């Protein structure tokens, strides 16, 4: 790989020390009842981004409660968020989240139904004025040089086919290694897609305890499938994967883990848990791309690399997501979805290291502000995973 001398990108430095690659005004609905209002407000402000949490975090239990609270508290202080309008139906929770945002030094406003006589139209009007002022306030923020070590990269695959494991995922692995070598962080998730390849991850574990945690996470997912009588074939790999040529979870997993590169694995993160130190990490999380990406977002990943076999339009809302495919048919069909066409590697016409270099360069351009196809087309959402019953 051509090692050009990039050690920095142009980012937004936050008062809390994090560095973003975007400067979003986030309109965040922390409860389900105010999502329509949040959507109405965000659609009226150019460039505003809306994320809604459809449940009441107060009534969730166990892992769900921990996951949702982490998500609601961390998403508004994500490095790519410049200012926040919090909207909700729970004034106590809204005040707690507002305090967290205030500590981060970001401009924000918080409004609940309770502040607006329980009237969504009043909430819309007050929210719109507050959001407009926040958008104006961050419009003068500027990018300044930032070290690559500030970057955290989420690594995803979706609607995979055998070209993903053969070409695209190893490309992500090369880029992940390069970022880790520059002092940054990289995370893979999708625990069920380690089944049959967990020994490869265990071998790279930084300590025996990390290897044991990887093994335990895989065993929990496998036992869950068995105890529910779920045959993974048809579920993961799903029907699209199977039509494209993947025959078993082991085959898919062996291709999947190549995304994580080759560097030591520092630890197993819970869903949405931030990587505490530089290096490569694994996140024990669901495999479906929408939930998986949000796990990385909550963990603070500013950028995502996402491979696809047959095409997958989904991207993170908060973190620019670069889409990669190596399937020559796919590359001709979904050109306005793919940020990198790696089909020439698949056809033996381009060395993998050259394609990895192109991906690295494009990733840095996106970090500096160039748009991804997902951003241009307004794709993107955040979907927090759910596990169990609620009150």
């Amino acid at each position: 790989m051509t090692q050009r001398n990039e050690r920095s990108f142009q980012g937004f430095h936050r008062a809390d020390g994090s560095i973003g690659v975007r400067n979003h005004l986030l309109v965040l609905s922390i409860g389900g009842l105010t999502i329509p209002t949040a959507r109405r407000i965000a659609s009226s402000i150019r460039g505003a981004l809306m994320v809604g949490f459809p449940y009441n975090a107060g009534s969730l239990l166990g892992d769900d409660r921990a996951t949702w609270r982490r998500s609601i508290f961390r998403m508004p202080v994500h490095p790519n968020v410049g200012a926040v309008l919090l909207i909700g139906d729970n004034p106590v929770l809204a005040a707690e989240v507002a305090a967290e945002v205030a500590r981060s030094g970001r401009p924000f406003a918080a409004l609940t139904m309770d502040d607006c006589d329980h009237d969504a139209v009043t909430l819309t009007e007050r929210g719109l004025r507050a959001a407009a002022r926040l958008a104006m306030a961050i419009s003068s923020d500027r990018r300044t040089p930032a070290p690559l070590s500030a970057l955290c990269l989420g690594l995803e695959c979706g609607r995979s086919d055998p070209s993903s494991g053969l070409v695209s995922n190893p490309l992500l692995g090369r880029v992940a290694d390069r970022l880790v070598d520059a002092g940054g962080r990289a995370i893979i998730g999708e625990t069920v897609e380690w089944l049959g390849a967990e020994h490869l991850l265990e071998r790279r574990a930084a300590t025996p305890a990390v290897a044991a945690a990887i093994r335990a996470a895989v065993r929990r997912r496998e036992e869950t499938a068995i105890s529910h009588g779920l045959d993974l074939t048809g579920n993961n790999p799903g029907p699209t994967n199977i039509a494209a040529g993947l025959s078993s979870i082991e085959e898919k997993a062996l291709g999947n883990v190549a995304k994580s590169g080759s560097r030591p694995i520092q630890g197993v993160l819970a869903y949405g848990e931030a990587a505490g130190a530089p290096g490569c990490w694994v996140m024990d999380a669901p495999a479906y791309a929408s939930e998986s990406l949000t796990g990385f977002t909550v963990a603070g990943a500013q950028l995502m690399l996402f491979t696809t076999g047959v095409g997958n339009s989904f991207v993170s809302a908060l973190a620019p997501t670069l889409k990669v495919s190596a399937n020559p048919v796919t590359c001709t069909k979904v050109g306005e979805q793919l940020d990198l066409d790696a089909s020439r590697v698949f056809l033996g016409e381009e060395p993998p290291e050259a394609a990895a270099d192109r991906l690295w360069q494009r990733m840095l351009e996106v970090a500096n502000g160039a748009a991804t196809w997902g951003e241009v087309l307004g794709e993107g959402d955040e979907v927090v995973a759910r596990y169990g019953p609620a009150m």
Partner: protein
Amino acid sequence: MDAIRLSPDDSVATVLRAVSRGERVRIGGGGADIVLEAIENVPLCHKIALMALRPGDRILKYGEPIGEATQAIRPGGHVHVHNLRSLRARAR
């Protein structure tokens, strides 16, 4: 090269273009290059058997087991969910 064998011990190769029954398929990648006749159509990215497999035989790709054969498979045959099953997440 029409199909790639990822590891010398692999029992299958991944076809890099759709191949039709009766075609001669050049296999490259890990291990010696060979030429094999496809005995079935194999769609793009799907797997072609490089050796005879009996029911219960482990099927290797990336040099690692990806499942077992559920029926006899002849060299040049299409290997997929109709004749391969996962070894994981099965009730013991």
